[in-house]
Structures are given as structure tokens and as C-alpha cells.
């Protein structure tokens, strides 16, 4: 009985969560563009801290950091988008996202704010063959401003599939 009761409570919580988090995006800035990621994936935002490099990783994986005793990898989104690197400064942030239980830190130039972008204000991504186009989930409109909404899953895992198939093709 009790267990069931709890299960219901849990469900309710989930609904609440979904409700409050729906259509909410954390926006950040890289180079000149504004981007957004669904807030549901974000667990926290921390300032830049010392990163331990890991050998033989792609350039955009900067290494690992100690997040309160947990070792999590850190990805530089700038390098991920093949943009020129930039010195980290006091405005540089690490956005910690969690997908399928795995936490990853994303290094972004600056974090802006959390915004509401209702579904009807999101346009489907442009069909581009351009590299990096694949990370886009949609284009969100807030008044005159435009935010590029990113698909976290693809940012974390997409390219490696691409390179993998390239590698097997060339091999």
C-alpha cells in the first residue's frame, strides 16, 4: 500500500517537474551567437576550474574536473563547433548536463538566462548539410531575438558516430 502511495507521489512530482521545466531553456553565448539548451538536462552551472587533460582525446574534450568528488568530463562547445579557441576568463562557465545518468560539463563563453520559448515559437532546424547543423534541435524566437536550440544528445555523441563511420569507410 505504502509503496503504491509513494509511486503516485513520485509520478505527481514528475508531472510537476515536466510542467515547470517544459519550454524552458538555458541560454548561453558562444562567439556571437545565442544558444539554448533544454533546462531539464541542466544540473548546475559552475565557474571555470582547473581541468586535468586526458591524453589521446579529441581536441574538444578538454579533460576532466572534480565536481564535489565526482570526476566528470568537460567539453569545450566552441571547439566542438570548430570555432577558434578563446582564452578562458572569469565569465567562462561550465554548464553541467546530465544525460542517461552520465554528467558532462560544457564550457561556454557566458551564460545568459533561463527563458520561456513556447513550442509554437520554435521552428524546425534548417536542412543544412553544413557541419554542426546536426546539433540543432530547432530555432527559438523571442520577440526579435533568435536562439539556436541545441540537442544535447547530439552534441555529446553525434560526431563520434560520424567520425567512426568515416574511419571505417576509409579503412
Amino acid at each position, binding site marked *: 500500500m505504502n*509503496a503504491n502511495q509513494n509511486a503516485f507521489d513520485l509520478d505527481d512530482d514528475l508531472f510537476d517537474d515536466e510542467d515547470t521545466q517544459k519550454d524552458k531553456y538555458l541560454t548561453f553565448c558562444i562567439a556571437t551567437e545565442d544558444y539554448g539548451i533544454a533546462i531539464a538536462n541542466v544540473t548546475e552551472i559552475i565557474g571555470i576550474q*582547473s581541468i*586535468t*587533460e*586526458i*591524453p*589521446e*582525446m*579529441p581536441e574538444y*574534450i578538454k*579533460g*576532466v*574536473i*572534480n565536481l564535489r*568528488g565526482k*570526476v*566528470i*568530463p568537460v567539453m569545450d562547445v566552441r571547439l566542438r563547433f570548430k570555432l577558434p579557441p578563446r582564452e578562458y576568463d572569469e565569465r567562462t562557465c561550465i554548464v553541467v548536463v546530465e544525460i542517461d545518468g*552520465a*554528467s*558532462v560539463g560544457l564550457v561556454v563563453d557566458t551564460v545568459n538566462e533561463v527563458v520561456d520559448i513556447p513550442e509554437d515559437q520554435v521552428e524546425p532546424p534548417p536542412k543544412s548539410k553544413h557541419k554542426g547543423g546536426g546539433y540543432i534541435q530547432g530555432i527559438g524566437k523571442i520577440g526579435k531575438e533568435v536562439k539556436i536550440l541545441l540537442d544535447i544528445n547530439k552534441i*555529446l*555523441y553525434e560526431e*563520434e558516430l560520424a567520425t567512426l563511420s568515416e574511419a571505417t569507410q576509409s579503412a
Partner: protein
Amino acid sequence: MSENLEIIHEFSNEVRDLLEQLEPSILDLEKVCNGEQAQDSPEISEALNNIFRLFHSIKGSSGFLQLNNITETSHVAESLLDRIRSGSMQILPGYIDLLCGACDFTHESLDYLDKHLNDEGMAEKARGLIDTFQKILSGEALPPTVGTGTKSIESETETRTAEAPIQIDLDQEPDNLKNPRVVEFFLQEAQDQLQVIEQDLLGWIKSPDDTELMNKLFGTIHSFKGNCGFMNLADPERLSHSMETLLEGVINGLEVDRTEVADLMLTHLTAFREVLHDISDGGPGRIIDLERRLAPIREFISLEEEVKEESEEPRVKLGEILVEEGIVSPEELQSALATQNDKKPLAKKQDIRVNLGKLDSLITLIGELVIAENMLINNPDLDGLELENFSRAAQQMNKLVNELQEMATAIRLIPVAGVFSRMNRLVHDLARKSKKKIDLQISGESTEMDKSVIENVIDPLTHLIRNAVDHGLESPEERLAAGKPETGVILLSASHEEGDVTIYIKDDGRGLNREKIIATAKRKGLITGDGSQLTDLQVHNLLFRPGFSTADKITEVSGRGVGMDVVLQNLKNIRGNVQLKSKAGEGTTVMLRIPLTMAIIDGMMVRVGKSLFIVPILSIRESICPAADTVTVTPDGHELVRIREHLFPVVRLHAAYDLVPDNYELDKGILVVVEAQGRNACLFVDEIVGQQQTVIKGLSDFIVKTGNVRGVSGCTILGDGSVCLILDTHALVEMDKTAEMQKI
């Protein structure tokens, strides 16, 4: 329901433990077959008693949970043992296999039970096994079998059910009645059973000739008896046993007034209910007028000698009664009492089963605590401050945390005996299959290791033992021809060495064949040239290459030559190490070096430029400052350093990890000589920072998926909160191996 679940899990664990004890004892019986021991020697009868008792306990507990397949199987096994024990049957090798089969079956059933919470899916297998047992048992004249086997056997096992409770008395009495959960479960179950018995008795009165009903009744009474036995309730057990016997007589054609029998039994139900009531009030569960109740039953059927005198204090004098009745001799009683006394201190050792997940989180938490403590005590904010009181408090805390960490590690340590005893069984089976004579000698089985480490050792050990039997030991003829004793010896030993555990698997077989290994390696393209300049060690290490096998033919016993490869991989997973030593004609020794625990290692911190790395101390042989003239550079650019007449390849960490070191000249830095898999390499570093306990953290899965991490086995968090990588010496030595192998 969840309570039920817990009981089932407890049962499953308990029976697994019992089985672990069972197998070695069963194998002891083999000595009789080999003619080493007489069947009636004290050692063997001790073993027989042990096995009997264990099967009986399994039967009792499974009957309690109504796992009928397990119950029946252990029951027939028990019957067979009883025959052997009483001397009416000779031990034959086939019986031992059969008993092993019963163990296997029980294991399987437990696996099934864990998944499905019942053992119904095992019915078919149980049937087959039970049939085999019964065929053997019915070699003697047996009463005609009716229905499910349980009965026919029950009738001829009666004589010893009287003894069984005593043994339970000795062994189990301390726990079951005191375990409130078990008691509660028993009470519930027993009440239900009594209800069913009552209904069926009433039904029986109406239709006295209904055989099916009688069988059902018999089954329920039998389960009830089993439950009482499990709870060590001697009185209700005796009463229900007498009812069972009477009923059986009726089923088998005893001429009595069935209605009268049923009426009589109905009156006994009251007694049982009183007992249950007594127990739920914390009483001992006696039946006060047991004798008076047994008397009318005796009028119907002779209850055999076991149920005669009711003693004032049956529990205390049970043994004496048995002596009086000639069931046990006074000597046996003495030895039983001795066992009882021996076992008493054991009962005081209090164990508690803990969910492994909880233990794991405890260890993780303590790991975090160690790190947090480091961060606190070595906090940069404290630099340059004179804090006498703080330092004292910090020291105290450091001491406590260290103790806590040691204690937590110790909790997870369990003796390797469990794994070793499995090997007994393996060797027995393998010997049978390969028709070789093998003596497995085990020592150091009380050596303790982390539970998860032990789990990872089972597979490699199995492989190695298989190898030893199949490739190592020769056939008896070959051995005799070579002037060796006919029986091959495999030595399995474990010991603590320098903070690690070392396991030796040593056989006195034919040893490794150098030429054959080299030939295979050449054929597989693993080496070029004739291999004559390779050291024995290098040749032996070829065996660890994936897919390498020298077995002339693939046999059922040993696999397809993936063995050694898997062994190495398994050991790497637990940061261990394998070494092979062999002398042609004299045998092979495999040495496994395994860290006590996987959570914390002793590490040496080294610095290259600005980066810090941890090298596991286990793999460090020495550290040197090389003189410039000891360095040789080969034409293809490989650097070799001479250390006492040996040349070691140099691995420049700064080059491997793309770092900027303080110095590029070898003689200005330090070389750390590491060893892995019998190969050595010198890691070139700028400085050795110091030794420290390292809490191992895995690299994130994301990293493993994204990049091709080589040479890093994990990471740890340093006192200042920064992350430090742990070097994988295996991989680093490997980096150089390609080059070296080409050279050869």
C-alpha cells in the same frame, strides 16, 4: 509479499552456503571409491553424516517454502545417503556423480528461484533426477511406489528421521526459533496447513476410499512435519510423524477403520494449534500430553522404536534416549556432544547479511571522506599559518579516517575458501572426463580478499585449472612412463604477499613446450625469426596473446585457446598480474598477483612538466637517475637504458601524453622502471613527488566512448581537489612492445 521475498532471498543465500560446504564433503567420499578409505572409517562416516545433515537442512528449509522440487530432490539424496550410511549400500562413483548432480540441480533451482520466486520451472529436471535416485534406491525391495515418490521413500527413511531432529538440534537450534521473522512465517504457514489438513480429514471421513485425498493429506502432513523439524519443534514433529506413518500405512492397504483414524487425527489438530499458540507467546512449543496422544496411533500401527518414551526433559536427554534405544551407540553420542560443544562458540559469532549495494556505497562514501579530509587539511587557505590546535585535531581526524577506511575495506574481505572448494568439484569432473588421476591440494584457503575481486578471480582460476588438467597433466600411462607417480598433483594456494594476494596454481605435469609455442607464434605471425633468442619468460608470455592456443586438438575440457588471454584480461580488470613459470617435464606454475581491493591502491605520484600522474606501486620495480652513458639509441630512434646488464626500453611520458617536460635529456630526469606481464619499461618523468593511498575513480563512460584512451586506467582526486590520472602500466609497456616485437 516483500517479506516473503526477503525470506526467499535469505533461503537462497543460506542454501548456497550449504551447497558450498556440501561439495567438498561429497568429494571426500571419492576416497572410498579409490580404496583410500574404508566406507566405515570414521573420516568417511563423518563426511557422510555431514552430507546427510546438509541435505537434510536444505530439505527442511525448502519444504518450509514449499519449493517441492528442491525438497524432493534433497529428500531422495538424503535417502540414498542414509542407505550408504547404514552400510546397506556400497559407495559407487556413480552415486557421487549423482549427488553432485543433486547439488547442481539445487544451484540451478536457486538461480531460477531468484528470478521467478518459485521452483516450478525445475519440475522436469527434478523428475529426471529423482527417477534416477529412485532406480538406485529400488535396487532393494521397496514398498510399491504411489504417486510422487516422496512417500515410497519416506517409508524407508523413517528409522532415521528420529535422528535428524537431533542433528538439527545441534546445528540450528540457536537461530530459527529466535528469528522472529522466521517464526512469524512458520506460524502463518502452519496455521494454513492445519486448516487444510482439517478440511481434508473432514472430507476423508465422508469418502474414506478417496486415494487422491489421502495422498494430498499425506503431503500436507508431511510438509507440516518438515516445518516443525525446521523449527526444531520435536514434539509436534513426532506427533505429525506418527500421523504420517499411520496414514501411509492406510494408503498402503493397512486394514483399519478409516473414519476412526481421521477422527483421531482431528483431535491432534487441537494439540498442534496449542503448540502454535504457545510459540506465538514465546513458549518452547511442547505438547504436554504427547505420549497420551501417541498411544492411540500406536494401536493402529507399530510406530517403530523411535517414538517410545517421553522423557521429562527430552531436549536435554534426547541423546540418552537414543542410546537406550540402541539407535546410537554411547560413543556416537559422545562425539555428537563433542560436536555440539565445538559448535557452541561458533554460534556466538554473529553474522549479518548486508546488501552488497549498501556496502559499496559505504566504501564510496569513505573514499569521498578521504578526499574531503585531504582537501580540508591541505587546504591552500591554511598555507603559512601556524595552527597548533588545528594540526592536532587534523592529525586525530586523519588517524580516524584511516582506521575507518581500513575497517571498511576489511568488511568486504571474504576468504577464498569458497572459490577454492569449487575448484575441488571442477577437478573431480575434469579428472573423470579426461580419465586422468588428479590430486588437488589446497592451502591458504583462509586468505581474505575483496568480494568483488574474488568474483573476478573465479573465471581465471577455472581456466587455469582446466589448462592444468588438460594441457599440463599427462595421462596415467604417460606419467608412469616418465617415472612420475600415476596421480598428478595440482597445488592451489593463496597467501598474502606485500599487501597483495598471491595465488599459485602449480601442476607437476609436462610443462610448457617451448618449441611448440614458438612454432605456433610463428605460424600466427606473432614473431618473426626462429625465436631462439627469446627468453623463456618472453616465450611464455606469448601464451597470453589473444587467440593463441597450442592444444593439438580442441577438447571438451579446455576451450579454444582463448583461455590465457581471458585470464590476463580478467586480471587486468582487477589490476592484477599473471606470471607463468614452467620447466619442461616438471610442470607449470601460474602465479596470480591480485590487489586486496579494487577501491584503493598504493600509488607513486610522479610529475611531468605541470602534470601529475599516479603509477601503481604494485608495478614499480625501481627508480633510477640514469647516467648519460647508459643510454643507447637504436637506429630507428628507440632509446634503451642499461641497468645492471639488462636493456630496458624508455617510454617518454611527455611524448606519449604530449606534454612539456622540465628536461628532455634522460640524465636530468628520473626513470621509473615498471613491470607488466614480464615486460619492463622505463617511464621518463621529471620528478617523483611521493607515495600515497589512492582512491580509484573510473574515468567517465563518456570519455571511454568518445576517445581512445590508452595508458590511463582511471583517475583519483588529489588533496587540492584536482584530478590526477592513474597510469596503466600494461598499456604503457605495450606501447613499446610493437617496436620490440618487430625487432625480433
